[in-house]
């Protein structure tokens, strides 16, 4: 563990990423304390540019709502959807991939056909169709994103398990009379954790991008302020007030970038043998 932290903190990008992410998380958690009022509330004249009015550091949007408040509340949706959809995707992908890789044969064939099918469907299009038809709410959006993101998890876990189950220590466990479940959960999966963790951190980033894309298209929960919605709503006024689209985009960019940097840091720290040489 200490080794891991040492290796992780040696990666400057990963540290910066962690710093950005912690800031975003703190803002999201304390949003109601920073802005007790609803982010939908009109507070001033519309179209106030940033840094022009005291108390409204980022100005107001097309309907006179506080942009800074929107950003802070938007962080909550992004993080929740990113995290929960990743968890759900892991809940689908890890068992499926693990059973496919561990038991092989027909189970593997069936599970992989199923995964391949979902991987063939254009994932963003599927997410659009699902959310559109099930009506956009926070749970349907999260579920739709999870449904389109689990196939790579299943493939990764299957590949890891396939190579691990032929390792000699797994065969030794088999010879000791351990049950399949005990071998899978006690010996195989723990050794597949590092790549799963790395992938999960990158999936949160992708999920945030997906969520913002959906709400940009108008497929966000109409009761919840989100970054994608803010950009979508400001799109029509892009010629006169470009900063209204610019600011939430930077928020998405920074958050996603932070998660990617953390993912790379985790990858280097958890798989030291693959770490870049010459540094």
């Amino acid at each position, binding site marked *: 563990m200490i080794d891991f932290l040492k290796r992780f903190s040696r990666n400057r990008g990963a540290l910066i990423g962690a710093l950005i992410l912690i800031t975003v998380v703190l803002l999201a958690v304390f949003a109601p304390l920073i802005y007790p009022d609803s982010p939908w509330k009109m507070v001033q004249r519309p179209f106030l540019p940033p840094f022009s009015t005291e108390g409204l550091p980022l100005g107001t949007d097309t309907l006179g709502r506080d942009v800074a408040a929107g950003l802070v509340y938007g962080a909550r949706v992004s993080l929740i959807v990113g995290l929960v959809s990743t968890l759900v995707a892991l809940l689908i992908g890890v068992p499926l991939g693990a059973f496919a890789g561990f038991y092989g044969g027909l189970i593997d064939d069936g599970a992989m056909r199923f995964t391949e*099918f979902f*991987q*063939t*469907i*254009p*994932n*963003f*299009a*599927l*997410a*659009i*169709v*699902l959310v*559109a*038809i*099930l*009506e956009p709410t926070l749970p349907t959006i999260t579920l739709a994103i999870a449904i389109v993101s689990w196939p790579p998890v299943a493939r990764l876990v299957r590949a890891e398990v396939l190579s691990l189950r032929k390792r000699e220590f797994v065969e030794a466990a088999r010879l000791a009379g351990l049950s399949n479940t005990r071998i899978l959960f006690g010996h195989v999966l723990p050794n597949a954790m590092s790549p799963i963790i790395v992938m999960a951190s990158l999936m949160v*980033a992708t999920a945030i*991008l997906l969520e*913002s*894309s959906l709400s*940009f*298209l*108008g*497929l966000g929960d109409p009761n919840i302020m989100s970054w*994608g919605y803010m*950009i979508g709503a400001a*799109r029509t006024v*892009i*010629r006169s007030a*470009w900063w209204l*689209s*610019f600011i939430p*985009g930077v928020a*998405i*960019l920074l958050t*996603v*970038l932070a998660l*990617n*940097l953390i993912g790379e840091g985790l990858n280097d720290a958890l798989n030291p043998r693959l770490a*870049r040489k*010459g*540094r």
Partner: protein
Amino acid sequence: MTLAAAIFGRAAKAVTTLLLIVILNFFLIHAAPGDPAMVMAGEAGAADEQFIQQLREQFGLDQPLYVQFWNYVSGVVQLDLGYSYRQQMPVLDLILDRLPATLLLTMTAFGMSLLLGIVFGMAAAARQGKWGDTAITSMALLFYATPLFWVALMAVVLFSVKLGWFPAFGYESVGAEFTGLDMVLDRLKHLFLPALTLGLFFMAIYVRMTRSSVLEVSQMDFVKTARAKGLAEGTIRRRHILRNALLPVVTLAGLQAGQLVGGAVLTETVFAWPGIGRLMFESLTARDYNTLLGVFLVSAAMVIAFNIITDIVYRLIDPRI
């Protein structure tokens, strides 16, 4: 296995996949709140109970589910994707009308991103650890983290609104009636920004993939054999490293095809590009489910076709299969 057999096998698989998507579509329609007749009535602007009942009978919605299912599936097999009340046109005609624009956009973006991705990825790998590598990988990391629709909007702000270099939307200049070379130039000008913004994200992926693949292959034993022969570094890189390193990139590019179509929805929406992505957005806002699901099916078919092409390319590069 021969190439012909492989293609046949892929085609058989593709048909199965498409059939499954059709089935999925059918269940999605029935999962939507309210039955299709009510949606259709809403589209047609009338909502009285009698009219809805009439619609139900006309489209067989009063029949048992399995009959409806059979009707739907056999319809799609005969290329009947339903009727769009909103646009007053069969869905298939709508899509065929819009498909060329999407193909042009996605293929341009794909070619551009793959070419640049491989070139930059190789350049980064060759300068591993030096500032050139850092610059390229940082750029890739940045584009990888940027929302596509936002890049598109910012490109409009910068290149159309502020600089006026490229048109902000559309497929051609309205009312200009260009002919010959002028028309081509006009189209290219319109194509540039959408293709660029769509391609940047994918370029970032290919840069990262190419770089790590080149670095991995560079460590392999046969590269050392090549050095022991006294080959020049350039020859080794070109002949031994690149070809082996490209195999995983080709596989990845095939898998990314689906995302390319998804990205097209966003780019076409921002640039009002008259393709099926834009059509999807329009049908979304109009709650035109027949069109929505039709586009979904066709985009899946595009992805499958693309996967088959990548498969063939892979077989041409790798003698082992």
